[in-house]
C-alpha cells in the first residue's frame, strides 16, 4: 500500500508541475463543448429554395408561402426556365426547387389533382429526407382540409379515418445540443484518460525511470494502479466542467440522479484508463502515445452512437461498438441526464464497462510482462 501511495503521490506532483497537461484538463473540454454544441448542429433548417412558377396564380403563391412558413425552406429567388434550376443547383446556390405547372390554379378550381413538383439536390441525403418529408406532410394536411370542406355540405360532420399524434418525451424541443452535450462528457473523458495514461507510461519509458522502477520492489499492479489513480480525479474534474458548461450554456436538463452518474462514471473512467495502459504498451515515446490515442478516438466518435445511432450500423460495427467503453457510458449519461434512468435500467451497461475494464487490465499486465522480459 505504501508503494502504491508513493507512486500516486509522485504522479500527482508531476501532474501539478505540468502546465500543458493541466490546461489540457480544463480548456479542451470547454472548446469541445462549444464546438460540438454549436457547430456540429444536425438540425436541418433554412434550406435554400428557388421557385419556378409557371402559373403565377394566387393558389400557387399561397402554397409556396405556406411551405416557406414551415421554416425549412428559404426562398432565395424565382426563375423562369427549367434549366436555370440546374445552374443554381450546380453553383450550390439552391438545394430545393418548387415547380408549379401553368394549370395549377385551374386544376384546383376544377377539383382535379394539382401537382407541385419538388426537385431536391440529392448530394446530401439528410436534406432530401427532410425537404420531401416536410413538403409531403404539409400538402397532405392541406389536402385533408380541402377534402373535408368539400364533403361537409353533402355528409355533414366528417371525421378523419386515421390520425397520428406525435408526443415526444424527453428533449421535447428536439434540441440537438441537449442530445450532443451529455455525450461530450464521455468523448472528452475517453480521449483525455486514454491519452494521459498512455503518455504517463511512455514518459517513464522514454526517460529511463521505468527501468529503475523494475529494479525496485514495486509490483506491476502497484505501479499500474498508483499511476492511474490520480487521473480518476482529473476525470471527475473534467466531467464537472462539462456538466456545468452544458447546464449554463446549453441548458441541458439533469433529470436523473447526479450521484448515480458520478458513481457509474467511475467504472467508465477506470475502464478508459486501463485501455490507455494497454495502448501505452505499444508506444515507445510520448509522441507515439499521443498518435495512438488519437487513432483510438476515431472509432469512439464514429461507432459509439455519439454522432450516428448504433441502430443504423451494420452488425459487425455494432459488435465493435460494444467493445468501446464510450458506447456504454453514452447510454448511461444520456439515460440519467435526459430520461432520469435508474441503476436497474442501466445495469447492462455497467456490466459491459466492468468486463471491458477487466479485459484491459489483464491484457495490459500481460503485455507489460512481455515488454520487460
Amino acid at each position: 500500500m505504501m508503494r502504491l501511495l508513493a507512486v500516486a503521490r509522485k504522479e500527482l506532483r508531476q501532474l501539478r508541475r505540468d502546465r500543458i497537461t493541466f490546461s489540457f484538463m480544463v480548456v479542451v473540454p470547454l472548446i469541445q463543448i462549444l464546438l460540438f454544441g454549436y457547430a456540429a448542429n444536425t438540425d436541418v433548417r433554412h434550406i435554400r429554395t428557388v421557385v419556378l412558377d409557371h402559373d403565377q396564380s394566387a393558389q400557387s403563391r399561397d402554397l409556396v408561402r405556406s411551405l416557406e412558413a414551415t421554416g425549412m425552406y428559404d426562398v432565395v429567388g424565382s426563375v423562369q426556365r427549367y434549366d436555370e434550376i440546374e445552374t443554381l443547383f450546380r453553383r450550390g446556390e439552391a438545394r430545393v426547387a418548387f415547380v408549379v405547372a401553368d394549370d395549377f390554379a385551374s386544376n384546383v378550381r376544377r377539383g382535379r389533382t394539382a401537382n407541385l413538383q419538388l426537385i431536391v439536390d440529392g448530394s446530401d441525403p439528410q436534406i432530401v429526407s427532410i425537404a420531401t418529408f416536410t413538403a409531403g406532410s404539409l400538402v397532405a394536411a392541406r389536402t385533408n382540409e380541402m377534402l373535408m370542406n368539400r364533403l361537409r355540405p353533402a355528409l355533414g360532420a366528417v371525421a378523419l379515418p386515421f390520425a397520428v399524434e406525435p408526443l415526444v418525451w424527453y428533449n421535447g424541443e428536439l434540441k440537438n445540443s441537449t442530445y450532443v452535450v451529455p455525450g461530450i462528457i464521455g468523448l472528452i473523458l475517453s480521449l483525455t484518460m486514454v491519452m494521459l495514461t498512455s503518455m504517463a507510461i511512455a514518459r517513464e519509458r522514454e526517460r529511463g525511470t521505468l527501468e529503475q522502477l523494475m529494479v525496485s520492489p514495486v509490483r506491476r499492479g502497484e505501479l499500474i494502479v498508483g499511476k492511474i489513480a490520480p487521473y480518476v480525479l482529473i476525470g471527475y474534474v473534467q466531467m464537472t466542467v462539462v456538466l456545468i458548461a452544458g447546464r449554463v450554456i446549453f441548458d441541458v436538463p439533469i433529470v436523473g440522479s447526479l450521484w448515480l452518474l458520478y458513481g457509474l462514471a467511475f467504472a467508465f473512467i477506470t475502464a478508459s484508463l486501463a485501455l490507455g495502459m494497454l495502448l501505452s504498451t505499444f508506444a515507445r515515446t510520448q509522441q507515439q502515445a499521443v498518435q495512438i490515442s488519437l487513432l483510438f478516438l476515431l472509432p469512439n466518435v464514429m461507432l459509439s452512437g455519439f454522432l450516428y445511432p448504433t441502430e443504423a450500423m451494420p452488425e459487425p460495427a455494432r459488435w465493435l461498438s460494444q467493445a468501446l467503453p464510450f458506447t456504454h457510458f453514452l447510454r448511461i449519461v444520456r439515460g440519467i441526464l435526459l430520461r432520469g434512468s435508474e441503476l436497474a435500467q442501466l445495469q447492462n451497461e455497467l456490466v459491459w464497462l466492468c468486463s471491458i475494464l477487466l479485459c484491459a487490465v489483464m491484457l495490459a499486465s500481460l503485455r507489460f510482462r512481455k515488454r520487460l522480459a
Partner: protein
Amino acid sequence: MSSFWSRFGKRAESSVADPNLVISVQGLTRTFGKFTAVADVSLDVRSGEIFGILGPNGAGKSTTIRMLCGIIKPSRGQGTVVGIDLLRQPERVKQHVGYMTQRFSLYEDLTVRENLEFYAGIYNVPYRRRGEVLDQAIERAGLEAFRRRVTGELSGGWKQRVALACATLHQPSLLVLDEPTANVDPVSRRAFWSRIHAVAAGGTAVLLTTHYMDEAERCHRVAFVARGQLLDIGTPAELVARRGLEVTELVASDAKQAESALSGLAGVEDLVRYGDVLRVTTRGIQRPLDVVKALLESQAIGVLRAESRLAGVEDAFISMLSPQERVAMGGAT
C-alpha cells in the same frame, strides 16, 4: 499481499555459511532462445567489497546484473543474493538492492527531496522514520543547498549525487551501478569514487560495470567478461600479474615500418601506435626491451627512444580479447 508489511528491513534467513557473502552464485546461465547471453558465471562478492565487471558492449554485463538484481530469471545455475535464493524468490532480492543506471533515472520535473521521498515510499521506509532518513541522505550527499531545486536543472555531477542518494536511501546490502560515470565530468567522477568507497566502508557490497580502465583499477576485485563468459576474476594486480605481460614503448625512425616488423615477432600480444609512439605488449620474451631493439636495428630501423612500462589492467584485459572484440572496445587494436 500477505508478505507486504513484513518486507521492510527483514533480512532473509541466510542459508550461506559465510554471512559476509552478499553475492554467491554458481554456474549462472541465461539464454534467449538459441542465443546464450551469459554462460556459466560464478561469483562471490563480500560485504564492503567493490567489485567491477569489465567487458566490451554485448559481453553480457547487463544481463548478469539483471539476473543478480532479480529482474530476469537465470535459465540455469544457482545462488543467493543477500541470502535470498535467486531462482526461487528473485522478486525478494529487489528490496535489498540499490540500483543506479548511467542515465540516473530521476524524475527531472520533481525536486531533489521529492525524488528521494518517492524512493523512500517505493522501498517502504516507514513514515515515522522518513523525515530522518531523508535528511540524513541529503546530508550524506551534500545536497542541503539543492533540496528544493528541480532535478532537471542540476548538472550531470549533481544529478549523479541525487541518483546515488536515491539508490542508497534504504541502506541496501548490495549497490549495483551500471556504467555509473559515463555521463559526468572527471572532477565529479573523482568525488563519486570517494563516495562509493565510503558506501563500501559502511558494509555495502558494490557491484559495478565500467568501460574505464582507471575505474577498474579502483575496484577491490575485477571480473573480465566477454562473449557472455567470465574470463578471469581477481584483484587488479592479480589479473595483471597472471597475464605475465611486459610492455615496451618506443619511438622509431619510421613508426609504420617498425610496426610491420614487430607484428611478425613471436610473443607480441598487442601492438598499438599512438602518433609516433609504439606500444608493444609481449609475453614470454626474456628482456623484451633488448629483443625489440635488436630486431628493429637488424632491419635498419632507427630506435630513437625505448623504455619498459608496467603492464596495467587495460593491457591485461585487451590481451584476453579477440581482435573483433578489441575493435568493439573502441578501436584499441
